[in-house]
């Protein structure tokens, strides 16, 4: 079969679908619902992988109070800063005080990160200003640089004021960063946040440490914890992404579980298309026999059936995955637990994977009905 003939047969399959509107609409709606669920689950899995999977470019360690997992209970003295800078393999250190509106699992978490204003550009030079002014942030006590995802979710822009977790700030700029965590928080001055949260001026929640190369992450983490082991406030140091996985492990476990829901949704799509195509083929026994009488070989009839299944899968996939990505883009969900946050964003990879899966499921679901349509004797079919 030449490509041009295959295209014509696909066009014929498309006419069969578009001219049986109600049946096609109902099938597409069902497939779309399944693929919506699949795409949401897949987006969650992607977000989780992005937040927890360590890559070659990951250079950041988080130094936390040993055996503490919530920002409200991790308290480290700020004088650790100089000690940390002296440890071999450390390039840069920034003390951070974290205040959150909710320490438990939440879909609408607000995180303030209090940092010394002069250290932020040094520690995270890849943070880019989307709007507002960095100077305005340095010169105001209650100014906040807000991550763009957080700003979009709350509808914030430079000049707005908002309050959460008992802290009221003015937005002086929006920022964008390759590090997903930065896009979901509000950076404020460390002394301001210490006062606003009534934490002592000499106390922070954690230190973020940038190491010289990613191959030394574990060695530096061990060196840090060894250094403070006998201090009154011993530390526990992890790579940033491992820290997220550890701190938000209930959240991680729940999201990990959702992969079964995604698998169930894919199986439901398979069953729905298989049922729809089987009914189509059963209702078209004589029509397929007429095509064979006209000279259509069995493989052309099979191709028409698989084509209809594939188009149903692809159409429903486009509907469901598109709706899911629009839904996630519109709502900008931010999952949080124990002060760790994870944004669930619409992603091209999910679009491609979802559409590909829908196409394959549609084609596979139509394979058996296609085989039946191909093999049925013509004369017997004409008599039905």
């Amino acid at each position, binding site marked *: 079969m030449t490509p041009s003939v295959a295209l014509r047969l696909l066009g014929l399959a498309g*006419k069969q679908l578009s001219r049986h509107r109600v049946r096609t609409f109902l099938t597409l709606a069902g497939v779309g619902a399944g693929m919506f669920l699949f795409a949401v689950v897949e987006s969650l899995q992607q977000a989780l992988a992005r937040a927890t999977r360590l890559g070659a470019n990951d250079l950041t360690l988080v130094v936390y109070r040993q055996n503490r997992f919530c920002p409200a209970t991790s308290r480290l003295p700020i004088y650790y800063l100089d000690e940390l800078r002296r440890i071999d393999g450390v390039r840069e250190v920034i003390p951070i005080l974290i205040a959150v509106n909710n320490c438990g699992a939440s879909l609408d978490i607000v995180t303030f990160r209090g940092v010394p204003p002069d250290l932020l550009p040094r520690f995270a030079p890849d943070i880019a200003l989307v709007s507002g002014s960095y100077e305005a942030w340095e010169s105001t006590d209650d100014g906040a640089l807000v991550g763009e995802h957080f700003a979009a979710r709350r509808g914030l822009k430079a000049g707005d004021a908002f309050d959460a977790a008992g802290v009221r700030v003015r937005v002086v700029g929006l920022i964008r960063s390759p590090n997903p965590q930065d896009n979901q928080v509000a950076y404020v001055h460390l002394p301001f946040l210490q006062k606003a949260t009534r934490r002592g001026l000499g106390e922070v929640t954690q230190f973020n440490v940038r190491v010289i190369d990613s191959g030394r992450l574990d060695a530096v983490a061990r060196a840090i914890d060894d250094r403070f082991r006998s201090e009154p406030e011993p530390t526990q140091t992890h790579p940033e992404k491992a820290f997220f996985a550890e701190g938000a492990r209930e959240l991680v476990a729940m999201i990990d579980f959702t992969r079964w829901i995604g698998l169930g949704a894919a199986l439901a799509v398979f069953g729905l298309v298989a049922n729809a195509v089987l009914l189509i083929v059963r209702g078209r026994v004589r029509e397929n026999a007429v095509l064979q009488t006209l*000279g259509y070989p069995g493989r052309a009839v099979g191709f028409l059936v698989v084509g209809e299944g594939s188009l149903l899968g692809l159409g429903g996939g486009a509907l469901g995955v598109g709706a899911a990505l629009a839904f996630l883009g519109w709502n900008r969900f931010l999952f949080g637990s124990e002060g760790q946050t994870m944004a669930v964003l619409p992603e091209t990879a999910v679009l491609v994977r979802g559409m590909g899966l829908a196409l394959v499921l549609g084609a596979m679901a139509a394979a058996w009905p296609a085989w039946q349509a191909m093999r049925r004797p*013509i*004369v017997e079919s*004409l008599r039905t």
Partner: protein
Amino acid sequence: MNPTDTPLIRCRDVRKSYRKGETLVTPIESLHLDVPRGEFLALMGPSGSGKSTLLNLMAGIDRPTSGVIEFDGQPIQDLSRGHLAAWRARHVGYIFQLYHLVPVLTAFENVELPLLLDPMPRRERRERVEAALALVGLAHRMHHFPRELSGGEEQRVAIARAIVANPPLLVADEPTGDLDRDAADSVLGLLRALSRDHRRTIVMVTHDPRAAAVADRVLHLEKGRLLEGAR
């Protein structure tokens, strides 16, 4: 022998039998038949006499249990499924009693169906479909769906579909069996014109003596055997 003297269809000692439950049914028994090129042949006989089975065997949509069926000197009974389909596409146009148009396709799209497998350019395809519809007098109805056509018009669309690929053989199974008298006359006139003016070989199964009257030759079948008529 001059190749044009070879019958278009030659059946030799053809037998067809199949099992229906416990019973062995034999609708065709030791049949010998030649259909010369360009002939309009009518097959008549009571129900169950085997005329539709014979038509299906000649059209290559069924296979004989034994015997030989030659088309233009070439045996077709042993062709593989795929080769037989390709052979049908090139050599046979089939006209059904109940038209069997695809209901969701327009008259144009129904007639176009046999050409979709041929890698001919779109423009040529369109011209051939329009010509076939013009020949059956339905050029003005080409964008109508079967539900918008009368029975006679539907059968004429089916005839256009049968001739669009220009096959040398047309087979028609009771083509007027579901039509009123006027529509039947119109369809028979069309088949007669295709035979006379376009030199198509036509084999038609019918119960209707008026339909058989337009054929060049009428053969009667009874219990799977041929009884040659007087005409």
